[in-house]
Structures are given as structure tokens and as C-alpha cells.
């Protein structure tokens, strides 16, 4: 096993283990802490695969913004969160468990049986992503970029309007 494979296995185990911890934890707050570990593991996978820029963006946005927002929302709804005896799952959870296990099995088999059209050996890997991605967003991918920015603006205004106290 090479060093890269070892790092991958560790990162993948952290990611998946924390994900299981997240969906099974009794308290939502602890679940959110597990979720942060998942985000960290995914960031490590990004860095390992060669997308360092995306790994840092993952930490910045998922841990620094989304996770903090979720923790905040949990703290702002204390009466519900404070009850440790409230059941964490709804009635359909055994059915869901069977279905998602089946989904995981089907996807794994499909992944293993598909012959992926891999890139040629020795295709040059781009370096300096910050510059390349910036150029890409301003040229080829300007439409998705603009749509995403409009979406962000609308979501920002919408969130303020909805959460505002009268």
C-alpha cells in the first residue's frame, strides 16, 4: 500500500465514520459536530486528489460558514434541542435504512462494473488553480457563474426577509 492509498483510507474512514456518527447521534448539536468532521475529511480528500484550492474553499465555506450557521440555528431553538428523550427518528426509519443500504449496494456494484473512460497516462495536470479558475469563471463559464451569484443574492435577501422579526 502506497502512502497515498494510506492517506486516502484514513481520510475516507474519518469521513464515513463521522457521517455515521452524524445520522445516529441523539443530540442534533453533537450530530453537527460530527458533520464538521465529515467536512474536514472531504476537504482532505479534495487536497489528496489534487484540488487544493477546492479543499481550502471547502473548509472556508462548509466549516466556516454553513456549519457555523447550523450550530447557530441549533442554539437559537433551545426548547426543542434541549430535550434528550425526544425520539430522533420518524416512524419510517427502518424502511429508509433498508432502502439506503440497497442504494449504497447498487451504486457500489455499478461503480465497480462500469468501465470508466480514464484520461491518458501522463496528461498534464493544471497548476495554479486560483488563476485558471478565475479565468474560467470570466470566460467559458460566465453564465453559471452569474446565475450562481444572482442565486446567492436572492438567497441572502430571502433569508433576511424570512427570518426577520416583525
Amino acid at each position, binding site marked *: 500500500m502506497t502512502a497515498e492509498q494510506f492517506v486516502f483510507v484514513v481520510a475516507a474512514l474519518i469521513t464515513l465514520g463521522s457521517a455515521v456518527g452524524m445520522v445516529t447521534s441523539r443530540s442534533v448539536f453533537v450530530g453537527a459536530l460530527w458533520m464538521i468532521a465529515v467536512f474536514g475529511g472531504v476537504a482532505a480528500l*479534495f487536497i489528496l486528489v489534487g484540488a487544493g484550492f477546492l479543499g481550502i474553499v471547502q473548509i472556508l465555506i462548509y466549516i466556516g460558514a454553513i456549519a457555523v450557521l447550523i450550530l447557530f440555528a441549533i442554539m437559537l431553538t433551545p426548547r426543542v434541542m434541549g430535550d434528550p428523550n425526544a425520539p430522533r427518528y420518524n416512524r419510517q426509519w427502518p424502511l429508509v435504512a433498508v432502502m439506503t443500504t440497497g442504494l449504497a449496494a447498487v451504486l457500489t456494484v455499478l461503480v465497480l462494473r462500469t468501465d470508466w473512460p480514464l*484520461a491518458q497516462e501522463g496528461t498534464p495536470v493544471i497548476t495554479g488553480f486560483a488563476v485558471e479558475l478565475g479565468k474560467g469563471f470570466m470566460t467559458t463559464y460566465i453564465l*453559471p457563474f452569474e446565475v450562481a451569484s444572482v442565486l446567492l443574492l436572492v438567497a441572502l435577501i430571502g433569508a433576511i426577509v424570512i427570518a426577520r422579526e416583525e
Partner: protein
Amino acid sequence: MPSVPLSWYLIVAALLFSIGAYGALSRRNAIGILMGIELMLNAVNINLVAFWRYVEVEGLAGQMFAIIAITVAAAEAAVALALILAIYRTRDTVNVEEIDLLKW
């Protein structure tokens, strides 16, 4: 080509997606559901980046769309949490089984 095969990444992403789906479909707490959805989006991002590295390495599309997916996830989290807070304020609950005013 890196020593980790592509299929490893895809399997991790598939498992993460399934776990996220389980969380989103089985939790009673609205914030728990949101967290499950975030996991599913993360799994998709792993796929996008892995395909970029192993299949389309000379292009940028994989990373571009991963960034856009992260943007959409941020927007989604902001709106969803605002909704949850608004519901909590009026109905005093974030349990999705009790939020059934629009249900037949």
C-alpha cells in the same frame, strides 16, 4: 496517474450519499434533515472532483461545478435555516411531523 483508483473515490462518495440520504429521510428534526442534505451535496462534490482528476484532467469543468455546487449549498443552508427559525418562532417546534398545515 495517482495510485488510488478512481473507483475508491466513487465508492466513498456513494456511501456518503447513502448515509446522507438516510439522515435526510429518517430524522424528525428539520435541522437534522438539512444536515443530511449537506452530506449528499458533499458526496456529489467528491464525484465531480474525482472525475475531473481521472477523466477530464485537462479541463476545469469538474472543479468549476464543484464550486458552484458549494455556492448553491451555502444559499440553500441560509434559506433553510431562516425558514426553520421562522417556523420555530410561530409554531414553537422544528419537528417536521408537527409542521403539517399544508398536508391533506
